[in-house]
């Protein structure tokens, strides 16, 4: 039988991870109009940073002597570090904090690098460039063993090992959802502020925005840096939750799923991401459950992929604005209203 508790943990944590990713995609694509087809690269940046650092930092803090190859021994040592963390919560949090900061900074730097082509290239050239860069990053992860264990993957110590059994899982949900909430609030606040207004202006009419004083290069750089840092944070949480990092997990399908969530929910509206991620997770889990009940002459995972591809096509065709369409944004102007006589009055009207 399926463990309902673990199922909920999985749903909650993955909702958080994908919400962070979708929020970053919404900021870049929905608000600024850059379709970041390299999203998985920035997600991987966070996860790879954890994979490369967490177990090394952990063994160093615990004073464990490393013997043997990183590739073959990382799983073993990450278990040892987890045991150490079980009695040393501060050290565990320290490792988490350090890897989080490193990952976010790494993500932001990669984002700034990506903004260089993003400023200069047509969207489709940019897309293929970012997809290819992401693939090379994955190939590097898979082939250079000392980085994240190559094809074997790398073990990631359990930073919540010190929590009593049963609460630990709730801890991961809390961790994931609190970072997701923070990311979404950042998105929401920016989206409904003069900053978001400038982004949409650039998205709608680049030349007019530049003429009215917007430094487009700078906005793209800022947004890609922020969006990529967010994606890297999602990667950090994902890596700790999974307990290992495997390079091949970070393939372009992940980018596709994030695009699906943003478009399905409604790009240009921060609420859209909340819904888009929920709908995806619901469908995905339902399909996963079905796996236990129906037998097909082919792998049901492929059916799921086909299903999601077709869903995205149907959305593009019949409801391109998504479930929750974009609305003119509300900054402080929500407080303004016109009276019948046509006078401007300050009160809430929306």
């Amino acid at each position, binding site marked *: 039988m399926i463990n309902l508790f673990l199922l909920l943990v999985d749903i909650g944590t993955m909702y958080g991870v994908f919400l962070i990713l979708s929020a970053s995609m919404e900021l870049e694509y929905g608000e600024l109009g850059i379709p970041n087809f390299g999203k998985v690269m920035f997600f991987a940046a966070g996860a790879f940073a954890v994979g490369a650092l967490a177990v090394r930092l952990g063994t160093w803090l615990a004073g464990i002597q490393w013997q043997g190859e990183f590739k073959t021994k990382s799983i073993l040592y990450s278990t040892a570090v987890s045991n150490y963390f079980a009695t040393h919560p501060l050290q565990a949090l320290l490792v988490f904090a350090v890897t989080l900061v490193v990952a976010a900074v790494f993500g932001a730097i990669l984002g700034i690098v990506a903004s260089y082509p993003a400023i200069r290239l047509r*969207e489709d050239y940019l897309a293929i460039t970012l997809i290819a860069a992401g*693939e090379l990053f994955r*190939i590097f992860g898979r082939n250079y063993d000392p980085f994240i264990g190559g094809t074997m993957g790398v073990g990631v110590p359990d930073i919540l090992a010190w929590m009593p059994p049963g609460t630990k899982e709730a801890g991961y949900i809390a961790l994931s959802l609190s970072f997701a909430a923070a990311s979404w609030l950042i998105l929401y606040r920016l989206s409904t502020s003069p900053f978001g207004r400038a982004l949409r202006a650039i998205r709608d009419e680049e030349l007019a925005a530049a003429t009215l004083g917007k430094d487009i290069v700078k906005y793209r750089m800022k947004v890609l840096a922020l969006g990529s840092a967010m994606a890297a944070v999602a990667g950090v949480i994902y890596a700790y939750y999974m307990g290992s990092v495997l390079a091949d997990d970070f393939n372009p399908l992940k980018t596709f799923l994030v695009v699906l969530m943003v*478009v399905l929910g409604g790009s240009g509206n921060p609420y859209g991401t909340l819904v888009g991620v929920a709908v995806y997770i619901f469908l995905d889990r339902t399909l996963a459950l079905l796996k236990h009940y129906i037998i097909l002459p082919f792998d049901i995972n492929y059916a799921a992929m*086909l299903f999601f591809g077709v869903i*995205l096509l149907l959305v*593009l065709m019949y409801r391109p604005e998504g479930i929750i369409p974009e609305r003119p944004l509300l900054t402080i102007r929500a407080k303004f209203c016109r009276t019948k006589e046509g006078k401007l009055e300050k009160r809430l009207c929306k």
Partner: protein
Amino acid sequence: MIDPNILLDALVYSNMLALLSLSLTLTIMTLKVANFAHGDLAIIGVYGAYTFIVIAGLATYLTMPLAFLFGGIYAVLCYLLIYSPLRRRGANFVMLMIASMAIDIATRALLQIYADLLKFNFKVYSRAFIFNDFTANILGVQVRGLVLVSSLSVIALLALLYILLMKTKFGVAMRAAIENPALAEVLGINVEKVYATSWFLAGGFAGIAGFFLPFRIPTSPDLGFIILLPIFAASILGGINSLSGAVVGGYIVGFSEILGTYLLSQPPINLSTAYRPAIPFTILIITLLLLPQGIASLWSRGD
């Protein structure tokens, strides 16, 4: 110094890439947006051919026209059922791009399911399959059949396309519809039909290229995505709007990739061949930075 077999392999690979980048360019010229499912058309073609080889027992090379047909039909369906209606509904550039990404995901899933069904129903290898080749003796030198067949195919298909575009009424209509669709419509050209035909041809060319794949490497449903990068590198190097540029781009990328991978994997560098995609990626980046109009701009003005 370099083993002639590697040069011949590079030729075969480049033949394939030239067909793919040519056909990608053809679709981009009509739709004005990059099709990220283009590599998959090749795989559709080769799975179509493979099915007839293992089930109907056809001789391998006889199924080449089938690869053309399968690739072409799938491409037309993509165009008529998805791209064209999307564009009529006012989808913008980025939405078409996202649609092509969705088509790629769905197509690869379809191919995977098909591969599972093929194996389940007919108990044949349906992934990582290869085609056996014959060898020809030319002036005492043993040459793989694929070297001859792929080279002759490229020459024949290019000649065919050239005649079609330059010497027939349809070619005039096609060039007009690509140049200025609104004007062509006014002149009584059925732009939709012309575009659909272009997609059929593009899909067919891709299918033929796909047919060559299993002679070189084990072929699986995901291969279409893996070859996407070199195809784009070749097309962009060629100037994305130039058919001749796309062909030349295909040969440059193809030879660079094969020879570069080979040389880098030799001592003293000993780089893993897994980094092979780095070569087309580098070509892509350098082109975009230094020659954004592609090499075709060196010999022509935006034709």
